[in-house]
């Protein structure tokens, strides 16, 4: 039947072993090789990008960046008129994301594609959903990435970003950003981006613009207007006022706050982080993370931990909060079983299908602490960014798609339809939370929540910090022990060679 010699059992086993041996040789040789050299990585200027050792440029990028000796995009000349790339042949570009069909980010990409195709009708945009981060990394290593996706570099995840830049995976958008905005005549694309967001699409030590903004997420206190009206409360501006509002609510049988209490994903950290920033200023905490000082040396940190504990002891968090995951906690808020939730502005986009039509809400800024030296207009947040893959087939077209994504028209669409907080100046806020844009516009400084740009480099020590914060909430550590263990954790990181 088959032109094979007769195989004895011994020969068959030998054949199988040969196949396996070939696999072993391939495994050992494949594992010891570095991936094939990609195109040249950008050469960093200034000191090595060990973020903990150098300050991070913030809301006034030119001033602080100059002090840090880090290159920044130079002030923009008069905007260059956009000259859309004449595209006559049918080309395909790809947008890949780990989210699934129907997700708000996928819907945004689909809408943007329609808008993009009005100017580039011959360019087909393939939207790939469900591409996990691991799969995206594999495609980068195989030099077959999608044009647009979570493959950029930004200040929100320094460790991964530097690795991606060194590997030469990321397309520099600096020149493209000098082009005129998609729909704001006379203004460059870069200048339409909020100054609080501009530093986040760059990476210290690596001159250039390495991603483009999707939406901003800022941490604010969401409140149920009806429950507030019920007890005659107004959005508080100080911690003492917040305490008073919580007492009113509790006396009326309403749980003041809900919180994600089960997981160590950093949600509970925000309370300590924000209180610390109001008491001391967040830069002191960042100095602690950089190893320049300790929490114990600044009594305000203990005070912050004690204030968190005080709220827990007063039972201002909904009963059973430690058993709520973040979805459950958000549902508790939208079911009207708790009046407030301190969370990021992704809340509306994430919960849009579950929010009752008659639910009335708004946001207020996390209150200041009387006597604190921190900036009351400081805000924690981040920008969700996308990047263009340098080794994709048509990065220039991907860049055009990105420029369209950052148009006022598309940003407004996202605000209205998926409640994304805009990163683009002049765009409208989500309709349900009219105060959101105002708070953001009045903010003087934005640090990445969880100080994740610093913590993300600390690996398992970040997990330990999250865990300690969740233990503080579950009353498994005292505030004093919390400070001590946090210091030990950070010290252990810096003690590593």
């Amino acid at each position, binding site marked *: 039947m088959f032109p094979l010699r007769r195989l004895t059992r011994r020969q068959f086993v030998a054949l199988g072993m040969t196949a*396996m041996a070939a696999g072993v040789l391939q495994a050992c040789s494949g594992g010891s090789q570095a991936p094939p050299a990609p195109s040249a990585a950008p050469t960093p200027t200034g000191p090595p990008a060990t973020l903990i050792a150098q300050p991070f440029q913030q809301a006034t990028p030119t001033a602080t960046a100059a002090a840090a000796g880090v290159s920044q995009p130079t002030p923009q000349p008069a905007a260059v008129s956009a000259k859309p790339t004449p595209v006559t042949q049918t080309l395909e570009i790809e947008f890949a994301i780990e989210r699934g069909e129907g997700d708000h980010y996928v819907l945004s990409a689909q809408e943007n594609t329609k808008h993009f195709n009005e100017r580039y009708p011959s360019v087909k945009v393939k939207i790939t959903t469900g591409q996990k981060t691991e799969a995206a990394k594999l495609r980068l290593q195989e030099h077959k990435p999608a044009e647009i996706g979570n493959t950029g570099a930004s200040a929100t995840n320094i460790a991964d970003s530097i*690795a991606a830049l060194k*590997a030469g995976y990321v397309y520099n958008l600096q020149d493209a950003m000098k082009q005129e905005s998609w729909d704001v005549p006379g203004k460059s694309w870069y200048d339409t981006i909020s100054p609080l967001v501009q530093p986040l699409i760059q990476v210290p030590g690596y001159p250039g613009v390495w991603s483009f903004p999707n939406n901003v997420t800022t941490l604010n206190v969401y409140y149920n207007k009806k429950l507030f009206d019920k007890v005659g409360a107004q959005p508080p501006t100080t911690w003492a006022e917040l305490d008073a509002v919580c007492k009113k609510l509790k006396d009326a049988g309403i749980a003041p706050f809900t919180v994600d209490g089960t997981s160590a994903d950093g949600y509970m950290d925000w309370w300590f982080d924000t209180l610390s920033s109001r008491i001391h200023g967040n830069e002191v905490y960042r100095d602690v993370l950089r190893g320049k000082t300790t929490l114990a040396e600044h009594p305000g940190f203990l005070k912050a931990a004690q204030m968190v504990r005080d709220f827990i002891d007063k039972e201002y968090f909904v009963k059973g909060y430690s058993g709520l995951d973040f979805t459950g906690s958000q*549902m508790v808020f939208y079911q009207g079983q708790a009046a407030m939730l301190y969370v990021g502005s992704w809340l509306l986009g994430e919960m849009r299908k579950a929010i009752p039509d008659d639910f009335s809400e708004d946001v207020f800024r996390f209150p200041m602490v009387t006597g604190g030296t921190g900036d009351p207009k400081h805000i924690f947040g981040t920008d969700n960014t996308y990047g263009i893959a340098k080794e994709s087939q048509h990065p220039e077209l991907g860049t055009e798609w990105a420029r369209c994504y950052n148009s006022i028209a598309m940003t407004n669409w996202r605000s209205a339809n998926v409640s994304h907080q805009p990163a683009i100046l002049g765009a409208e806020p989500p309709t349900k939370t009219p105060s959101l844009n105002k708070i953001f516009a009045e903010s003087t400084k934005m640090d990445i929540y969880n100080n994740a740009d610093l913590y993300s480099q600390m690996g398992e020590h970040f997990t330990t910090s999250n865990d300690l914060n969740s233990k503080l909430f579950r009353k498994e550590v005292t505030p004093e022990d919390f400070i001590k263990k946090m210091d030990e954790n950070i010290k252990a990181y810096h003690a590593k060679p």
Partner: protein
Amino acid sequence: MYKKERARLIVPFLLPAVIVYTIFFTYPAIQSPYFSLTKWSGIGPTEFVSLANYRQLLTDGTWWNAAKNTIYYATLGGVLGLALGLLFAVAIRSLSLRLGRYAKAIIFAPSTLSVALVAMLWLFIYNPVFGLLNGMLRMVGLDALALPWLGMTSTTIPAITVASVWAGVGSTTILFVAGLQKIPKEFYDAAQIDGANDWQLFRHVTWPLLWEVTRILIILALIGGLQAFGLFYVIAGGFTRPDTDVTGTFLYRAAFNEQRFGYATAMGVVLFVIIMVLTVISNRLLTREALEY
């Protein structure tokens, strides 16, 4: 002659499976030990660090806690699952054929659900504010027992075990029912003639003749318990706490949240060895002389 001809025929049919198995199972299994000797963030080249990852594992408190939790989960889940499965199987055998079919369908239904669906379902059941469990407890005046089931270290693993047993007891029951059906009725008749009561029937007839099935289920429960990951991961929303980690979730977090792929691979290699050794040992310990009937 016929056997040699048949052997010649089998080779081309086996070869595709052997090739697929080599590429997708053997090759990664062989490559893993290499990565376990490196420091690698998942992007860029690897850095050879010899046995540093294994040395770190020996002194990593989180790993040992995760291992302890895994053994706890595997033991609790195994005992509960097997006991319930056997109970259901014995009960089903006493039902009429028709009722027995309905009972089997109801008990087996959860086994058809995906891990993610089971996790989401039980997340809602355990929700401390509006979940079914606490709601029922409050309804009957047991407010003190309405706990944050997934929020306390002491209750999280038992709670997840219950969800896991609920999802898996159907398969166990079906296998036990099949085992029970193999036992000839005459053995029970003979024992009853000798004056055996229900317990004696179970102890001296059912249990010994069901041992082969039980042995396999114990080994499968052990392997399944030690490989615990999906339910823990989805219930925790992807962010498990170190105090309620199992080895699978700690491994995943080390690799994908903390970018310590080399370290995570070392954990994987150790887990593989542990599961292999425990499987061989339990197989040896649980093997009895087969009863022929």
